[in-house]
């Protein structure tokens, strides 16, 4: 978790950034950079694309800071980062690449005879990195709309209401996208259970 700013300090920096103070803007970014970057990385899937999307987002944030009308500055920045990611994904879709992953996902297996380890406990933490990599792959197989909602909700911990605000979509849309996204990630894990670390294997 990046250090968050006290509200008064954040307000002062936002005012300075509004009048064109780049250093004040960078101080705001430093406070939130890990959260912003993580969102981009989980949505885009790799460091290069994540870095490009965040850089592009920060430039438009600085140029458009007059459009910030109060509320959560982090949510406002997250919204811009999310949209930069979305734009880049849309550009990519126009130049489609064959996705083997998508083929594997379609080949789902029934969820019977599946045993899963407890999420707590030392063994889980030992295997956490391996599992995180598999989850990261699973997230990349989701359709963009679902992927973004899942990242904001389950990876970054935003509430339904905050996500609806960030994405400017109705609450019901957030709920249904999140539900479908979770099911798909679950099904991906079940379809790749041989890749699940240690005791997660059936």
């Amino acid at each position: 978790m990046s250090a968050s700013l006290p509200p008064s300090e954040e307000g002062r920096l936002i005012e300075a950034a509004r009048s064109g103070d780049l250093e004040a803007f960078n101080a705001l970014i430093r406070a939130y950079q890990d959260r912003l970057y993580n969102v981009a990385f989980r949505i885009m899937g790799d460091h290069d694309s994540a870095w490009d999307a965040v850089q592009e987002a920060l430039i438009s944030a600085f140029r458009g800071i007059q459009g910030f009308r109060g509320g959560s500055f982090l949510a406002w920045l997250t919204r811009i980062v999310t949209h930069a990611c979305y734009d880049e994904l849309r550009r990519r879709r126009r130049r489609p690449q064959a996705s083997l992953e998508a083929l594997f996902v379609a080949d789902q297996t029934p969820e019977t005879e599946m045993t899963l380890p407890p999420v707590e406990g030392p063994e889980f933490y030992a295997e956490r990195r391996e599992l995180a990599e598999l989850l990261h792959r699973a997230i990349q197989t989701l359709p963009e709309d679902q992927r973004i909602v899942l990242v904001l909700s389950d990876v970054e911990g935003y509430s339904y209401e905050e996500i609806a605000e960030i994405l400017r979509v109705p609450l019901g849309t957030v709920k249904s996208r999140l539900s479908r996204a979770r099911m798909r990630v679950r099904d991906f894990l079940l379809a790749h259970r041989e890749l699940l670390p240690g005791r997660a294997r059936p």
Partner: protein
Amino acid sequence: MPVRFRFDEHQWVRERLSLYLDGRLDPEARARVERHLAACAACARSWETLRWTVQALRAMPRVPAPRPLALRPEDIAPAPRPVGWLRRAAWAMAAVFLLVLGLDLARTLGQATAPLPTALAPVAPAEAPALRAPKAEEATPAPLFGLAVPSETPVASPTPIPPAPAPSPSAPPFWPSPWRLIEALLLLGILGALALDRWGRRPR
């Protein structure tokens, strides 16, 4: 004891497991889901695996930025489009191309209306008319020196004039005319500039 549910009921419950997990169901729906999960092993497994998945997602470590995120002054300076000059070059070449084409066309049409047209233009356009005029006359038996001495020629040379030694009007030129070369080069230039411009503006 086993309870038999309609298929719709399994579907109804599974569609609400995500909301159930987040405590987002009203008490009535929540009780209905819980009743179902207590009685249906398949849906209970579905619930367990979903809960496990979401817990694992929430436990994913945050990936920090590989280097500090910050904007430099040059990042926010309004950037001029670096490839605009290619388009301007293409336009300029297109204008020159049209000019050359017009001159070439006028020249060719001028030749076509001449008394004895020759298909050849082996020299630069500026000096071509001066040289071509006598050559056109050479093919005819008289007058020998063109307009300069029109009255003398029939008298002075009664013998037939031998055909011009070179170049013969019927033989195709070995190398295309410089007009065609210039036009082709300009066309290539225009296409090249447009292709480079397009490449420079490709989405990244």
